[in-house]
């Protein structure tokens, strides 16, 4: 309503032209994003679908992705939240460099990240030789790959969350007799909660969908992305649909949960 008033105040026809152009451009992109999701239901062949669902390895791969992504994200929360806090609250030489380092996994293509990780954890690497554990072709390999690739989401969103917390709250808590840790746990963390949850969800979704780095580190056991990739390579497009449907279902649930949390928080914080 406000926009309408504004445009009519300046130039009616100019405002209308602006409206039409922007409506077309944004509408086109929305259709481009949403239509493939809606379309999938129209191209399902019921017999193939039933047959595919009967194959337990799709469900297993999906489950494996959920479990590994959850572990990866918890690890990221444990290490990433303190890192994000330090990057926001403390000034030290080399801080800028650290801020660049944390976005490396975001800018390097995941396949390349996988190669980098193989260099460290591969069977013939120093680390790979030093531990009696299979880092590659194992659940551990999946987690290593997911954690690496999803880390920027957790760190960047937690950073933004802490940045939005006014430092004066922490000062007040300290004066009121609370040490750094208690201040962090009782003030900074609760106030940054929504942003951190957003980071957690983004990192988790990224980890569930991870393909490139996981392919290099652990083609087996199959995560859902590798399963979809393989189903397409071996059985063709129709074979991938059960996996795709599961992933879509998960996304819908995640989006709903996230919106609910955001809305609930919004009410509480008076946004």
């Amino acid at each position, binding site marked *: 309503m406000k926009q309408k008033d504004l445009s009519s105040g300046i130039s009616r026809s100019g405002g209308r032209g602006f409206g039409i152009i922007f409506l077309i451009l944004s509408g086109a992109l929305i259709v481009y994003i949403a239509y493939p999701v809606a379309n999938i239901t129209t191209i399902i062949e019921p017999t193939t679908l039933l047959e595919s669902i009967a194959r337990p390895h799709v469900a297993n791969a999906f489950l494996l992705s959920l479990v590994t992504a959850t572990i990866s994200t918890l690890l990221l929360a444990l290490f990433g939240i303190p890192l994000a806090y330090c990057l926001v609250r403390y000034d030290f030489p080399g801080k800028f460099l650290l801020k660049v380092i944390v976005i490396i996994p975001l800018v390097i293509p995941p396949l390349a990240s996988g190669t980098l990780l193989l260099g460290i954890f591969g069977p013939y690497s120093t680390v790979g030789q030093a531990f009696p554990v299979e880092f590659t072709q194992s659940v551990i390999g999946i987690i290593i790959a997911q954690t690496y690739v999803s880390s920027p989401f957790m760190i960047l969103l937690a950073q933004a969350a802490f940045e939005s917390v*006014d430092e*004066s709250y922490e*000062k007040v808590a*300290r*004066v*009121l007799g*609370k040490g750094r840790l208690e201040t962090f746990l009782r003030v900074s963390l609760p*106030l940054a909660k929504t942003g951190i949850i957003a980071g957690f969800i983004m990192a988790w979704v990224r980890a569930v969908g991870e393909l490139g780095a996981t392919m290099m580190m652990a083609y087996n056991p199959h995560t859902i992305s590798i399963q979809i990739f393989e189903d397409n390579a071996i059985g063709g497009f129709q074979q991938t649909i059960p996996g795709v449907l599961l992933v879509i279902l998960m996304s819908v649930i995640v989006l709903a949960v996230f919106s609910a949390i955001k809305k609930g928080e919004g009410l509480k914080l008076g946004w």
Partner: protein
Amino acid sequence: MGLELVSLTKNFPGFTLGPLNLKIDREILVIIGPTGSGKTTVLNLIAGMTEPGGGSVILDGSDITNLPVESRRIGYVFQTPSLFPHLNVYENIIFGLPKRERQQKNLHVKKLLDDLGISHLADRRVQGLSGGEMQKVSLARMLAIEPKIVLLDEPLAHLDPPTRRKLRLELRKILRSQGVPAIYVTHFEEDVYALADSVAVLHNGMIENAGRLETILASETSPFVSEILEEGNYIEGKVVESKGGMTIIKVGSHLLETLGEYSVGSKVGVVVRPEEILLSKEAVKTSARNVMQVQVADVAQEGSMADVQLRTDSLQLRVRVTDEARIELDIKEGDYIYAIFKAISPQVVREES
């Protein structure tokens, strides 16, 4: 008991604070100074939020210079209330109390809420509070930990004028009732009259003048101090009558009329702005309630304005009029004239029973 600063310094690029030497007991010290004079830094040094370049902070006889913030038990109220948005009013107030002490401190907290008149807000979310209520909650939160000293950094600065006046009048009683030293930092002259037992004027990082309020007001001070402290006219008197929203204050041989009701017999301090006083050669009858005969002690011209110092046997007034008006009225040193101001002009900033 009390606070002592010994040669306390802090260096910033291009600015040095101190060395500060200061000793205060169970009293309210108001530090006044312009923006950038280092007022907040003084408080931060005492609270331990800023590391001093040298010197020491001694509280109740022990050196706390190297103690971390959280171990000092200092009450600090900032310009903005900074109430924790994720906690309600009561949770905010008890935030500083260790969990095991909450039960036994319950009565103390209850009394605080009563004294500050915020008991009815206890279960409220902090988001819906008015500015004055928020600042009261932050005061309660700070007093709940029973601090050894209270620091206030212009806590009234962001309030609207009526709320500021009201809370300022209450603040002195609240702070006095705690029985601990308090340092109040401000750039408002009224705050000095309203709250101070003693005053320190901070100028370019140095304390230019410190002492009891009455001494500072009576003595000849540096031009800077008088510029800051003699903006308004501060007058102390005794309430002789108060009813129907009007109060009569006896100042020496004068009776001042002002708005509001205060307890009869109490000692009050009022501030009258120099630009709100009219000068007249005769005792003209107007709607203004305060008319008094005065003698001109001094006249000083400042550009298009004139600063006229007036004197009676019991008070001094500074009046600002245009220089043109001064010339037309032919006001000279030694003349007897009349000072006239409305009952709404004297602002009661201090009340003591």
